[in-house]
């Protein structure tokens, strides 16, 4: 059993193909809820959700014995993480099978990345 991060990205603040109309938004939410229910029922779901825009981020940095904070995201880039799931999966094939379901639900590319075994995480 391993744990995988399934992350999705917004480009310049926009999620391409994101829901525009209330009907689309409703259908999107239904797909996501159904997916999360299925993850929950199979013991796959660890945590996940959508993030606020990087404008809402604060960076903390150790500096001369103190911690300094700055406004904004860590990386100034066009792409920012927009949401993620952390899932349990036996191996990459199982994680990729869930990844396909996530892509079907959110209609957006995702990255599948394995967790390292450290602390509480058992890879």
């Amino acid at each position, binding site marked *: 059993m391993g744990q995988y991060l399934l992350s999705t990205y917004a480009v310049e603040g926009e999620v391409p193909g994101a829901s525009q109309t209330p009907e689309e938004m409703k259908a999107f939410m239904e797909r996501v809820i159904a997916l999360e229910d299925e993850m929950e029922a199979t013991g796959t779901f660890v945590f996940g959700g959508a993030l606020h825009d990087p404008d809402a981020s604060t960076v903390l940095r150790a500096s001369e014995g103190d911690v300094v904070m700055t406004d904004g995201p860590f990386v100034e880039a066009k792409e920012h993480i927009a949401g993620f799931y952390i899932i349990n999966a036996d191996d*990459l*094939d199982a994680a990729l099978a869930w990844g396909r379901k996530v892509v079907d639900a959110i209609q957006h590319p995702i990255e599948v*990345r394995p967790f390292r075994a450290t602390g509480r995480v058992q890879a």
Partner: protein
Amino acid sequence: MTRTVAARADATAVERVFREAYGQAVATLIRVFGDITLAEDAVQDAFVIASDRWRRDGIPPNPAGWIVTTARNRAIDDLRRSARGRELHEQLGAIATPSHGPGTEEQGEEGPVTDDRLRLIFTCCHPALRPENRVALTLRLLGGLSVDEVARSFLVSESAMAKRLVRAKYKIKAAKIPYRVPDEADLASRLGSVLSVLYLIYNTGLDGRERASLRSEAIRLARALVELMPDEPEAAGLLALMLLSESRAAARTAEGDLVLLRAQDRTRWDRSMIEEGQAIVRACVRRGRPSSYQLQAAIQAVHSDADSFEATDWPQIVALYDHLYSVMPTPVVALNRAIAVAEVEGPSAALMTLNAIAPDLDSYHLLHAARGTMLRRLGQRDAAQAAFERAAHLAAMDADRRFLAQQIEELADDGALMEHPPGQIDWTAKRNK
């Protein structure tokens, strides 16, 4: 020589037998240890022992089994000695239980094919790995090629290839790419990648006598694939393509030099391989789902039908290349089609095509060799010489370089032949005398 096992074996024989057994041994040890690098290191240790013991006592009747046993014992001893090893050894205890062991779950032992090498090839050819890494891993782990040999087949440096292999193995381990034959649902989509890897292994086996065992290895794995996937015509097509190519192995070289198709002694072609290959092609035609490997096999089947180069049904071959180019529009297909076109329409038409694709294949020695051949047939000796020299400069294999050097040498004799009309100079016929 009536002894089945020599009492002593020389270093070359030991190396050859070891390489043949390498893929099976590594694949089995990966299943045992659940770790690729550990399996490779253990097999390398076993080789050091084998090169000493086999030379003294002779090669054992089951070399792969000997390597697996020796490598497993050595690896377990090493693991017990180190702290990290004890930790790993505990993990191995868990992996070894049937319900958790890699390759023993689901498809595992009940599956239609339980060959460890098949598990390993589906792992090496996993679509989450970039294509060049799939081929590199398969050649290294299943083909038993050295890192340097893999590097040369890719035209990259040894250190770059070593880094690439380390990264690919890291991903298999970190991301937990499974060690098993895929489920029925994924099997078809995973096949294309496996087939292209096998074909590259076969072609690597054509580069020099010391690699010939790669060809039988590729054919063996292709046979196992066909058995696993009897309804997949492309797997059958690849097997037929390899068999028809392999049927000419004995005629393809003479004293280490290459002999082109047109100059080959066709009585030395292996009839049983031709019959098997042609039977597969006929079955593929009946299925009516032609794609790239089946079409390439069909082209080879037409060559196999002809008693001589001149008697070949060239229009049929050009038609098959047209079909092939429609499903596989690559510069290499265009190159091979151009060579066939030369036999139907003459060297000018072929040269036009070759010049058009030259920018795409500038680093491919066969493009320049083909241009040299056409230019020579057109009587353009200086241009032909430049093309052959460029081909020789790019060719990686000694046999290719010797062949090309001979073409350049023969060009010097062409002056006397210039009285013949251009296009009538058949240098392969001259070679044949």
